[in-house]
């Protein structure tokens, strides 16, 4: 301790305090977790949260169960960091697209997760020499995020004005 110059000590302490405050006020640790409510912190995720909440999987799965790879911990944490950094970057730079859509990479992850949980059910239909070339949600259009149009319904209950 003695060898460390005081200004640096102060700076270090300040940094630690600042980080602490940052972590406490922004609840950064939560982002390492899997609570659906955490994703919902970002208001742009609100429609997805809202209609996930009303869909079939709310009792069964959290966002990360579908949206992050689960074959091993490395893949899981790498993808979590990568996606998180991407989302935060897009969000803070204000370049959030009007229409958020899962990209192909995400779709692949999701598909693997459907099969991971439902392996027994789909065993006989995905087998065979030809690849099972469609996404589960081509048919199960509502199981993950509820009925179509629900993404906007949360806004239709606008609080801007009362209804007589």
């Amino acid at each position, binding site marked *: 301790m003695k060898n460390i110059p005081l200004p640096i000590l102060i700076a270090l302490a300040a940094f630690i305090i600042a980080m602490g405050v940052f972590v406490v006020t922004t609840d950064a640790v939560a982002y390492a977790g899997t609570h659906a409510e955490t994703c919902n912190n970002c208001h742009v995720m609100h429609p997805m949260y809202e209609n996930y909440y009303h869909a079939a999987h709310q009792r069964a799965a959290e966002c990360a169960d579908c949206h992050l790879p689960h074959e091993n911990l490395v893949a899981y944490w790498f993808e979590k960091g990568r996606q998180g950094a991407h989302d935060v970057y897009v969000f803070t730079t204000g370049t959030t697209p*009007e229409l958020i859509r899962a990209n192909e990479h995400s779709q692949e992850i999701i598909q693997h997760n459907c099969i991971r949980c439902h392996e027994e059910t789909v065993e006989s239909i995905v087998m065979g020499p030809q690849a099972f070339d469609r996404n589960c949600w081509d048919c199960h259009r509502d199981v993950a995020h509820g009925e*179509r149009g629900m993404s*906007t319904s949360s*806004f*239709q209950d606008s609080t801007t*004005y*009362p*209804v*007589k």
Partner: protein
Amino acid sequence: FMKNNPPAERAFEPLVEIAAMEPDSSKWGVNFPNQWNSFQKTETNNIDTTYAGSSKFSWLERDPRQKILFAGYSFSKEYNDDRGHMNALEDVRAIKRLNLNDEDPKHTPATCYSCKSSNNPSLWDEMGMETYDAMTFNEMTPNIEYSIGCANCHEADTMRLIVTNPALENALKAQGKDWTTFTRQEMRTVVCANCHVEYYFAGPDNYLTFPWENGTRIDQIIEYYNELGFKDWEYPETGTPALKAQHPEYEFFTAGSTHYNAGVSCSDCHMPYVSDGAAKYSSHDVHSPLINPEQSCGQCHTDVEYVIRRVNLIQDQVAETKIATEDAIIDAINAIKIAAANPDADAALLDQARQLHREAQFMWDFLSAENSTGFHNPEYALKICADATNLARQAQMLAAQSVNDMSLLATDTYYAPAPTP
């Protein structure tokens, strides 16, 4: 804290108080800058799509058959595609269809302002629609200052959607319906029916009326006009008591279209929610959804490219079939003209021919004047084409029979004109 307040108090905090039926939208805009800003964009929008869009292109030039189909009626003078709501006043005042000679018994009445201005709700409130409609267009002009605005759709103190046009209120009543019991989602369609509907002027005092007493389906509307013996004009040389259909988007869309039956409203497609940073609001920049399909369709259809390709296919199919129907009607018109010029024509057969011409043309127009090139209800559009073509051909056959002249059966006379009478 939101959750603890009773709903009534969850309302907006108005910056300024808006008088009931305030015609000046910019005053409302102080409280609702997003809605007002987007609304103003309707004035300068100029983007066209394949079949529609926001420029003022001429239908008579784009499809010269329509010059023939509206011959003798004001629509053959000028008929343009519609533009944004902020242009309504400018456009109605500039159109060559007006007859501003008040001495002429056929002068344009004040009724033509009914769907063009936010001054109307307060004017109707003050003088009543009967008095309003009995005035001439010229007489009304000084009272009309603003184009369409907030007061045409909203109640000032609550901002809820309301029926502002007494003609709509009457038409709903005639069907035993009370709009104050409608749900919010229903109002998101009905509010457009203040204007986007087929109408006619009843009686000598031009009382604005929607022909819905028997219902809003095409056969019910034709039945209504037939019972009434109403005609918009007499088609020149054929003597047909012709009807003009005007923008029946509401009737067309609600006639069992897939979207209407699924609970989708006009506003879902034409006024999608858009975001301003954090806040979402309804875009008041009302125009073709094909200009911003991600917002308009994307909230419900994940594959936006797919639905756009689909719209193209539907519209191409309808446009092609519609032209075939027009050609058939023109063949009928040319035949009836020759028959009508013949003093020896069988009057009963000729009248039957005219009646079928009247119905075929109204059916075609119902589809044509509906501005989505069939998309609002594709199957209805094509069924109407099938029925109208069948009637037009039968009209032509009756005309030929009435004068016993085979040359009247010539087809494609639009391309190779038949000998004139």
